[in-house]
Each structure stands twice: as C-alpha cells, then as structure tokens.
C-alpha cells in the first residue's frame, strides 16, 4: 500500500462519484420538488444504457448516443409523470408504490427488446487511452467522466441559482404550498424536474455503461447507490448530491479495496446512521 495505491483508488473513487452524481442529483431534485422517492430511477439509468447501445449499433456514433438516449428517457419520464403520477395528486406513498410497478415493467421491456446478455458500450477511441502523470496511468475515459459531471454540475448549479426557473424550483423545494400561493406553477415545475431527473440518469447510464456494462438487474443495483448519494447529501440539494456522490464513490472504492468482506456494509451503515440522526441528510434543508 504505497502512495500509488492511494492515488489510483482515490482517482477511481472520484470518477465513480462523478457517475453517481449524475444519477443521484436527479433523484434528489425529484424528491425535493415532489416529495416522492422514484424507485424507477435505476430503470432510467438502465434504459439510457440500452438505448445508447441501439443508437451505436444503428449509427456507429457514440457521441450521438448520449443525447439521444438522454432525451428518449426524459420523454419516458415525462409521460410517466404526466399520465400516471400526476393524477394521483399529492399522495406520496401511492406515487412511490406506482414507481415500483414501472420499475418492473421497464425491466421486462428491456429484457424483451435487448435480451438478457451483458452488453458493453465502447466509447470513442480517443477516450480509451491513458494519460501518464508522475508514473501513474490515468484512463482518459475516467477523466472524461469527471469532466462531464463537473460540467453538468456547474450548469445545473448556474441554472438553479441564476435563472428565474431555478428560483421557482428552489421555492418549490422549500415550501411547495407557499410557492403555489405566490403563483408558481408547481405542477409544471414537477413535470420539468421529473424529466430532467430521467435525463440525467440516462446520461449516467450511457457513461457508466462503458465500465459497468449494461445488463438486466443493473437497475436495482444502481438504485440503492443513488439513494445513498441522496441521503448522505441531503434531499433536494444539488451541492449535497455532489458531496454525497463523492463520499459514496470513495467509500465504495476504498471499502472494496481495504475491507472486501464488509464493503457494502461500510457503505450502507453510515447511510442508515445519517438518516436516523438527521433525516434530511447532511446538507439538506430543514
């Protein structure tokens, strides 16, 4: 265990955290605005990966597959929110239970369309190289992941803090009733945020597909990790999601490397503890 071990593990953890940020930030925003836990969020991740595989098979362009998959899944999310979740009104538990049903439906649909084999997404060849810094090899693809997550994170942050729409979203997160009272159309906000969350999860699915693979069951593997991000960071908070993703990414990597027998335990036990002590998460708003 020399410096090299720590540097590589930390780098892997941070890049994994970048991926988790894409999945977790959407889940967090959806929770903040609608007060529901979207249990189909892992399915958006999986569907994103699968759609990207089809796009790559059809056009051969990896770069094109990211926006197509993200927009496609965003439309799926939009329809789900409009047609099924919205008519239930404000009844979080029923809405949560409904998202479970959709997770199962998406699972079956994915199995029917893309089959049960483990598939891979091959990114553009420029990204499959490595960069050598100080004698340590850093895969360019993982650097790209970190860069993309930073870009999206900063973009989201600017949108939330500097635009009128962002202010309306923040108002809805803080107090939906009050927001409605001052004339904010929270109905439209929740539609927009749900689609955005699905969009981000699908981007994560395409990006993550290159090193996790795309296979049935990935949806319910990603879901608890996304939860961990949201819970540690605090629900409805973008900065919290970023810090949560970083912590979960590092905890996951170091846990697996240092204490493999209890690695998942070291990830989920702190999550349960944080929830018990501060249900709104470390950086959540009261």
């Amino acid at each position, binding site marked *: 265990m020399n410096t090299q071990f720590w540097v590589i593990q930390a780098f892997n953890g941070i890049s994994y955290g970048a991926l988790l940020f894409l999945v977790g930030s959407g889940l967090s925003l959806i929770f903040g605005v609608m007060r529901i836990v979207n249990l189909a969020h892992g399915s958006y991740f999986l569907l994103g990966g699968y759609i990207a595989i089809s796009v790559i098979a059809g056009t051969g362009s990896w770069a094109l597959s990211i926006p197509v998959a993200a927009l496609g899944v965003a439309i799926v999310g939009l329809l789900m929110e409009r047609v099924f979740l919205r008519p*239930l009104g404000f009844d979080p538990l029923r809405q949560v239970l409904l998202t479970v049903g959709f997770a199962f439906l998406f699972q079956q649909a994915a199995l029917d369309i893309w089959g049960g084999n483990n598939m891979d997404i091959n990114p553009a060849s420029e990204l499959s190289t490595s960069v050598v810094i100080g004698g340590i090899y850093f895969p360019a693809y993982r650097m790209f992941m970190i860069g993309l997550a930073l870009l999206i994170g900063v973009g989201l942050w600017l949108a939330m803090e500097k635009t009128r729409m962002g202010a309306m979203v923040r108002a809805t997160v803080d107090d939906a009733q009050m927001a409605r009272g001052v004339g904010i159309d929270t109905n439209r906000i929740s539609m927009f945020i749900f689609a955005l969350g699905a969009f981000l999860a699908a981007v994560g699915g395409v990006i993550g597909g290159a090193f996790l693979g795309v296979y049935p069951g990935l949806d319910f593997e990603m879901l608890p990790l996304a939860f961990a991000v949201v819970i540690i960071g605090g629900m409805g908070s973008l900065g919290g999601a970023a810090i949560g993703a970083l912590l979960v990414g590092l905890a996951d990597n170091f846990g697996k490397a240092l204490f493999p027998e209890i690695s998942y335990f070291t990830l989920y036990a702190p999550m*349960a503890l944080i929830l018990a002590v501060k249900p709104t998460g470390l950086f959540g708003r009261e």
Partner: protein
Amino acid sequence: MSNQQVKNLAVIAVLILIAVIVPRSGSFVVLLATRALTFAILAMSLDILLGFTGLASLGQAAYFGIGAYLTAILASKFHFGLGWDFWLVTVLGMFAGAALAAFFGLFAIRASGVYFLMITLALGQCVWGLAYRWNSLTGGDNGINLTGGRPQFGLDLSNEVTWFYLVLAFFTAALILLYVLVRSPFGRSLAGIRERELRMQILGYNTWLHKYIAFIIAGAFGGLAGVLWAHTNGHVSPETVVLTTSVDALLMVVLGGAGTLVGGAIGAAIVFGLREYLSTLVPWWQYVLGGVYVLTILYLPSGLMGIPARVRQWWTQQGKDKEPEKLASVPSS
C-alpha cells in the same frame, strides 16, 4: 352472524379448500403453493407495519434473510436443526428476526413516511451487503446449499406434500396470532397511530414504543418466513435479501389490500401464480404482473380485498356523487 364472523368463516373455508385441493393438483402446484405460503407469512408481517401501523418498510427482506441464513448456516455447518431441533431453529429464527428488528428499530422508528421507507431500505442493504460479501460465513454470491435436506423427525419432510402441510400449518398459526394481535387493544392503538399519531400522543400513548414493538413483531414473523423459505428452497443466496425481495413483499401487500392480513396472502398467491405459472405459458408475464400492480394502485387503492366494499358502495350509492377515495391505510402526508 356478524359481518366479521362471515369473513372469518370464509377464510377458514378457503384454508380447508387449499389443504384439500393443492395436494391433489400435482407436484408443481404443491411447490408453488408452498412458496406462496412462505411469502404470505412475510407479506403479513409487512402488513403489520404498512397496513396497521402506517409504516411503509422497504427492508422486510432483512428479517426474512436472517431467518433463512440462520437456518442454512446451522444446518450446513453444525448439522443443527435437521431433527427435532428444527422446532428450536424456528424459534431461534423468530428470535433472530426480532433481535435484528429491535436493533434496526432504534434507528428506523424515529423516521416516518418516505424517510422511514428510505431508512429501512438502507438497513436492508446493510444486511444484503453482509450476505453478499461475507464469504466465510454466508458463502458470498454462491450462497449456501442445504445439502442435509429437510428435517426428519418421525415426519418425512423431504416429501413435498408433508412439507406443504407443515408450511400451511405455520401459515395458519401466523395468521391466527397476527389476527389476535391486530384485534387486541395494542393492535387498536397501532391503528390509532396510523390514523393520527399526534392525537394518540396527546391521549398519552407512547407512540414510539408502540411502533417499536410492532416493528419487532413484524421482524419475528419475517424471521419465521425465512426459516421456512430456507427449507422450501433448499438454497439460500443474497437473492433472498436483495432489495427486490422487499419490493416483492410490499407489492404483495398492496396488491391484496393493506390492513387486511389475508390480503398479503392473496397478493403472494397472485405474484407467485403469475410469476411461476404464467411464465411457463407466455414470455410476457411480467407485463401482466406490472400492469395488474399499476392498475391496482391507480384504481383500487385498497387492493383486491377492497373490491367487495367497492361493489357494495357502488350498489348503495348509485346515482349519488362518489366520494374520492384514498388509500385507507396510509396517512396522507
């Protein structure tokens, strides 16, 4: 006869019918029914939380898992629980489930609503993580095979029909115990907490303690279901404690009707029926399962058990304006 007596008689009649018909319907149906009955116990244990206390748990598989792993580890490593001591294992399994719930409850009971859902999910994932990674104890991804077979003590439990009868007996016992529990003053206080916790607090109830005890009882019955599952399946793996098992249990309760006990059993029968019977007939069975589930949430918030009430309501209220219906068992915030 009161309404309740009629319902009880109907449940008894159905149980007798199951006992008579299933063993005559071939080995596949016997296996299916045994599995469904095992999960029915798990679903009923969850119903104590979801239906009667208003706590939606997404971690019920943890207690199921600890019962199953305890049985498998004792049987495969110590050859314990394969004779008369099987009864001791069932008690141990319930204790293990209760003890785990007593520990987890300290964290979980503080939360309510969606937060409770998430904290139980996190706790369930802790158990799954240990089962998946703690190779030396749990066999990791491969799990544990119960190579010793089922217990033998005068009864030959390796016979599927005998085993089915034993599981049915356990199910019936669990149903009676839980029925008595929910009709007891304690059960009534749980319903009070479900309807309005603040009011119960003002009336002087220690609602935290009531919820904590309900959580422990649910854990104990989850553990029992796990013990039976280990012997039904002959194999225990992280699949037993994975998130989807908890989700399945939740689905069964909601499908059948939360707050009715037998609803969970009906849900278990439907889920297993669709999953294992329909899947041999058509490849798109999961659409049916998912579709049935989505439609139930949208149009039958009180589950399949709510159909008679809906029909009666429709019968008597025809022409009048219908009251908007809410999921009866769940607090709206």
